[in-house]
C-alpha cells in the first residue's frame, strides 16, 4: 500500500511541477518524476513481499515466492522510453533557449491562434 501511495504522490508531484513551474527545465524534470512515479507504481503491482526473482532453475522457489516478472520487464522498457522522451525534451529545451534566450514557458508563446 505504502508503495502505491508513494508512487502516486510522485506522479502528483510531477504533475504539479509540470503544471505550475514556469521554467522549461523544471517542467521536463516534472515529466521525469511523473515517469518514475508510473514506473514505480507498475513495479509495485507485481511486487510480492519477501519474494524473489522468478528463476525456474531454482527448485526451492515456489510460485508464491516469485514476484511477477512481467511488470519488471515492462517497466524496463518504459524506463528506456522515458529516457528517450526526456532526451528529446531536453534537446528541444536547448533549441528553445537558443532561439528565445529564456526558459520561461510563458514567454515562449509565438504560436497562438
Amino acid at each position, binding site marked *: 500500500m505504502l508503495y502505491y501511495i508513494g508512487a502516486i504522490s510522485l506522479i502528483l508531484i510531477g*504533475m504539479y511541477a*509540470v*503544471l505550475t513551474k*514556469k521554467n522549461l527545465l523544471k*517542467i521536463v524534470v516534472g515529466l521525469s518524476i511523473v515517469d518514475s512515479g508510473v514506473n514505480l507504481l507498475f513495479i509495485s503491482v507485481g511486487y510480492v513481499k519477501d519474494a524473489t526473482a522468478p528463476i525456474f532453475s531454482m527448485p526451492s522457489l515456489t510460485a508464491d515466492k516469485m514476484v511477477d516478472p512481467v511488470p519488471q520487464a515492462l517497466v524496463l522498457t518504459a524506463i528506456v522510453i522515458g529516457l528517450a522522451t526526456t532526451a528529446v525534451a531536453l534537446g528541444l529545451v536547448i533549441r528553445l533557449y537558443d532561439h528565445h534566450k529564456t526558459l520561461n*514557458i*510563458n514567454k515562449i*508563446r*509565438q*504560436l*497562438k*491562434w
Partner: protein
Amino acid sequence: MISVPVILSVMFLGGVLAWLANRFVPKGASWTAAIIAAFAGYLVFALPSCGGEYTLALGSITLVWKSTNYSALFAMLVAVLGFLGILYSMDFMAGKKNLGYYYMNFLFALGAMLGIVYSQDLVSLFFFWEVMTWSSFMLVIYSGEEKSHKAGIKYFAYSAIGAYLILSAIVILYAQSNSFLLSENVKMFSGMSLGTQIMVISFLALGFGVKSAMMPLHVWAPEAYKESPSGFTAVFSGALSKMGIFGLGLVVFKFAANTEFFVYVRETLAWLGGLTAMLATFYAVIQSDAKKLLAYSSIGQLGYIIVGLALGTPLGIMAALFLTIMHGAFKAMLFMSAGAVYMRTGTTSLDDVSGLITKMPLTFLTALFGIISVAGIPPLGGFISKWMLYQALLETNHYFLIIVIFIASTAAFLYLYRFIFSLFLGQREKEFEHVKEVPWSMLVPMMLLTLFVLVAGVFPGLVLDPIGKAMGYLGNFKASWEPQVVFSAWGEKINMQVIAGTIGTIFILGALFIGFKNRKATRVVSTKDIHTAGEIPTENENLTYAVNFNQPFERAIAPILKWSVDKLFNLLGENLESTFEYLRYVYTGNGQTYAMYVILMVVILILFSGSIFGIHL
C-alpha cells in the same frame, strides 16, 4: 440508343474536352463547347420523354436515372438555354482568359442540371445538386475580382446551407424507408410520423427555396447574378434557379400532397412566394445596376412561380410551369442584352449608359420584347402566364395574395422601364458614339428567344402541351386549353389569336398611317434638338435623366425598404463569426494551459464518471 447516362457523359466529358481544347487550339474551347451543347441538346430532345431508364449500382447505393414528362420539360429548358448561352458566350467571352475553365464549368453546370432532373433517386439528385452548386460557384468567381469572390462565397454559403438541408431531409427519409429511390420514398411518405413529415418537407422546401431565391433566402442572388459572366447569367437565372422550382414541385406534389398538413404547406409557400415577388420587385426598382436589377426581377418572377405551384390547382401549376419556361426565355433575353451592353460599353450601370438604341437596334429589340414579356403585357408569352396565375388565385380565393402579386407586377413596370430607358433611350453621351452592334453569334440566341416569346404568346398551346404532360407526372391534374385558347376553372377563356390579331392589325394600320403620312417631311433629329424652354442645349450639357430615376417611388416605399434581410443576415453572420474569435482564449498558445486542460479533463471525467459513463467510482 440514347439514354440518360449518354447525355450526362456527353456533357461532362465535353466539359473536360472543352478545357483540353482550350490548351491546344485557339478558340477551341468555345467551338467545342458549342458543339457539345448542341449535340447534348439534340440528345435531350431525342430522348423519349418517358423512359430511358438506367440503373447504376455504386457500392451499397443504387442510382437510377430516367426521363419523365416532368423532367423532360426542365431538361428541354436547360438544353436550349444552355446551348444559347454558350453560343452567346462565343463572342461575348472572346479574348478573355481561362476560357477552358469557363466552358468546362459551364458544361458541368448544364450536365449537373440535366442530372438533377433525370435523377430518380435522392442520392444522385443531391450529387448533381452539389456539382451544379460548385460549378456555378466557379463561374460566379470567374472574373477573379474581389467583389465576385465575395459574391461567390455568399452564394456558396447559402447554397451549402440549402444543400445540407436537402441532404438532411434525404437521410431522414432514408432512415425511415431504407431506400433512396424517389418513388419508394413517395410511396412510404404518408406512413411516416408527423414529425418526420414536417421536418422533411420543411427542410426540402427551404433547401430548394434557397436555389430558387425565395425570400428571405434570396440574399445571395443579386450579387451572384451580377458577378457571373452574362452568358452564364442567362442560364443561371433562366435555368439553374429553376432547379429549385423543379425540387419544390416534387416537394409539394409528391411529398406534401400526401400529408394532412398539405394546405398549410401550400399556404406558407404561396405567401412566401407572394412576398418574394413584391419585395424583390421593390428592390429591383431602386437598383442602379442593370444586372442587379434583373437579378431582383428574377427573384420576383420566381416568387410568382412559387405562388403558382403552391396554389396546387391545375391552372396554378400550369401558370407556374408556363412561367418557368417563359421566364427562362425572357430573363435570358434581358441578361443577354445587358451583357451585350456591357460588352460594348464596359459597364452595366444604369446611371452611366444611355441612348444605345440607334447603335444597337437589335439588342434593343430583344430588350423590348423581354420587358414586354416580363411586364405581362399581351400578346407576348408573359401575359398568358400572368393571366393563368390570376385566375388560379381567384379560383382558390386568395384575395389578398392576388393584391400582393398585382402590386408586384405593376411595380415591375417601374424597373422595366428604367432598364430599357437608361440603357437604350434618352440622351446619348459622346463616349458611346463608337459603340457597335454585337456580333451575330450573340444576336442569334437573342433573336431566337425573342421569336420564341412571341410564338409562345400567340400559341400558348405549343408550350402547354409538354407542360400538361409534366403536370400528369406531378399528380392527376387536368386543365383545358386549345392551341390558342386557355380556359380557367371559372369558365373564363382567353383567346390569344383574337388578341394578337387585333393588336397586330391595329398596330400595323397605325404604323402604316404614321409611316406614310407626309413621309417626306418626317425627319429624324438628334436628341440634342429638343424642347428646352427656348434654350439650345450645348454639346456638353448633361440632359440625361438617369440617376435616382425612380426616386418618387422610392420615397413612397421608404418605410418598407428600411428593413433589409440581407443586412440582417450579414450582421448575424458577422457577429456569429466574431464570436468564434473567443476561441482564442481556449487556444492560448501556452503549452502549460493545454496540459492543464488534459488534467482538468481527467479530473472532471473521474469526478462525474458516475453520470457520464454510468460507472460509479
